[in-house]
């Protein structure tokens, strides 16, 4: 039997949607230890992005336990009638919610996010009126909360700035639920044309076991039980924004427009980065790994994985500058905190008091063995390779694209007050950057749950 190129591509994409390839090891490796959460949390709120997940205490620190398995699928809109497609997608999403409990990681969390190309091509007139405007970023000219991705000082020239219409993030403790959701939305439903499939995992002992099984160089040196390849926990409760803080409206960063259509929405940044696990563990001793991941000189227990990141531990601009002057280094978390933490008490749009030092971004990143994706519709542009590679699909929710850009610039030593610390790109003193290489970036808008399917198409 001879298959057409289209059929071959469709078959390969279907396999990726189902978590085939290296990710079949998950089952053989036990699927990861089922996370124990001392509180259950709640998924499925009015916001699509805010998963209220349970917490555990690890090394004396409260840690949010994210779902173990993640898949992010990007696509172009293939449907010609967006209103019909809106109905079909919403019906499919509701069908998934009936099949898999959306309120718990044992079920399935689905977050549908839309890229600028969708708003510009499919609903341009509605978008002009209803896309929220970023007040902070609109000093010289009006800018929406959703911006095209940019390359940052530490990004290589070849970093691809993507232009997908849509991205769907699927999260669950059960890999079969993730696969079922991906197939339902991208195989059984005929409104999208897939551009990439990205798969990964967080915690449960999976990073070391999966990396070792895949033959990743340096995998043997990943600490047992580490949440991520680089050995430190990233989901300390105090390091993640509380539920509504990343909403467009909460901190007043956005003007929601005439009908507040996107109230309850947020910005989602998606990027892929390779991680040089071997260099991290063979060139950075534990002391330097702490200095690099957090703040130079931070006092932590030997071989700790979970480091407190509460408001008292937050670094400020003067401290980052002083530490750089004294050591020639900035820490990853410390530098970012100059932008990602509230610099003063803020009363949110909903009346909640958010104290100084509170985190704003809500992270949803996951480790991966994709190189750089599980599947791509453009393997040449995406530089697809068959061999597994350690990396991270970095997914984070910020109130605006500009807010993410400010945080990411701080990671490179460009501080909120405009100070540019003189660090060469990817220098060893520049936080994690010397062991990271970014391949792709894009920003998306996450509508509130009520408008998650083809937003604005009904207007």
């Amino acid at each position, binding site marked *: 039997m001879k298959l057409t190129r289209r059929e071959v591509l469709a078959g390969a994409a279907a396999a990726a949607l189902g978590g085939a390839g290296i990710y079949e090891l998950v089952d053989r490796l036990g699927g990861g230890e089922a996370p124990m959460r001392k509180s259950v949390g709640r998924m499925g709120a009015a916001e699509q992005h805010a998963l209220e997940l349970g917490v555990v205490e690890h090394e004396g620190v409260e840690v949010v336990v994210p779902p173990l398995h993640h898949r992010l699928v990007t696509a172009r809109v293939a449907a010609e009638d967006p209103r019909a497609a809106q109905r079909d997608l919403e019906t499919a999403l509701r069908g998934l919610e009936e099949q898999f409990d959306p309120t718990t990681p044992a079920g399935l969390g689905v977050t549908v996010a839309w890229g600028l190309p969708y708003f510009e091509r499919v609903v341009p007139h509605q978008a002009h009126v209803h896309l929220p405007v970023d007040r902070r970023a609109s000093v010289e000219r009006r800018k929406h909360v959703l911006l095209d991705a940019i390359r940052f000082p530490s990004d290589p020239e070849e970093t691809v700035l993507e232009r997908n219409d849509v991205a769907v993030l699927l999260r669950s403790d059960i890999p079969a639920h993730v696969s079922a959701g991906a197939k339902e939305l991208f195989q059984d439903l005929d409104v999208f044309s897939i551009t990439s499939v990205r798969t990964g995992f967080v915690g449960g002992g999976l990073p070391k076991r999966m990396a070792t099984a895949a033959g990743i160089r*340096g995998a*043997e040196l990943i600490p047992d039980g580490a949440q991520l390849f680089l050995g430190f926990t990233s989901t300390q409760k105090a390091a993640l924004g509380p539920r509504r803080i990343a909403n467009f409206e909460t901190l007043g960063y956005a003007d929601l427009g005439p009908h507040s259509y996107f109230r309850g929405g947020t910005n989602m940044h998606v990027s892929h980065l390779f991680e040089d696990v071997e260099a991290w*563990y063979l*060139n950075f*001793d*534990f002391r330097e790994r702490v200095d690099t991941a957090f703040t130079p000189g931070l006092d932590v227990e030997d071989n700790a994985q979970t480091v407190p990141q509460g408001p008292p531990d937050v670094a400020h601009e003067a401290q980052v500058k002083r530490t750089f002057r004294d*050591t020639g*280094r900035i820490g990853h978390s410390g530098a970012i905190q100059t932008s990602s933490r509230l610099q003063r008490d803020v009363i949110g749009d909903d009346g909640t008091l958010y104290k100084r030092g509170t985190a704003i971004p809500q992270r949803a990143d996951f480790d991966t063995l994709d190189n750089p994706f599980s599947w791509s519709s453009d393997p040449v542009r995406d530089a697809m390779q068959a061999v597994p590679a350690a990396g991270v699909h970095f997914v984070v929710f910020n109130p605006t694209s500009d807010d993410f850009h400010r945080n990411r610039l701080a990671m490179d030593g460009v501080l909120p007050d405009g100070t540019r610390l003189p660090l060469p790109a990817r220098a*060893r*003193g520049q936080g994690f950057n010397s062991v990271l290489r970014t391949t792709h970036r894009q920003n998306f808008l996450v509508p509130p749950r009520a408008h998650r399917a083809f937003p604005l198409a009904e207007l």
Partner: protein
Amino acid sequence: MKRAGALVLLVVMCAGCASSAAGPKAAPSAKKACTPTQLAGWKKLARRVHAPVYCPTWLPDPLDGVIGSRWNNIDAVSRDRSYLESWVWQETGPGAAGGELHVNLRGYPARTRIPKCVDADTAKRTLIPCFSDPHGVVRVGDIAATVYTVNQDADQWHVLYAWRHGGSLYTISEHVAPPLNYTKTRAYLDRILRGLVLVGA
């Protein structure tokens, strides 16, 4: 990057030797005795540093443990009598066609403290331990070697075993580079350690 710099250096040092180099296969296990050719060099070194030294009866093929052989790219003794003997083999080429084997043996006579190295990766150039991140102890005979995974200078990107004997510090290390991974490097270091013979001054 230090690694890139080291590789360039190795390429220069090994220029012209790649074509005649054997592949990076493990040599058959040898008896625990150094050959007369090996011994001559190690005895001379022991006399030079006024302290016992360790002669390797086994190194990964084609490295031979002979001081002054074509693979012995560093034969250095410092003013404080510490020494570095290094053997390197490198084959350039893509994938399985390329690879590198690099083993260092060091001694620090009359000193047991871990030496300090300059941190060349930050502008401040502070002093840092030359060996850090201990990962357990390997015992062979009367040697109890601590395994260090983060090392500096000529031992950068190496796994290093360090132990004390007779008031001196000794180390062996091997570069974690294709065709070896971390696990294979540890296995090679275990075998090198088992094959060491103490040579008196």
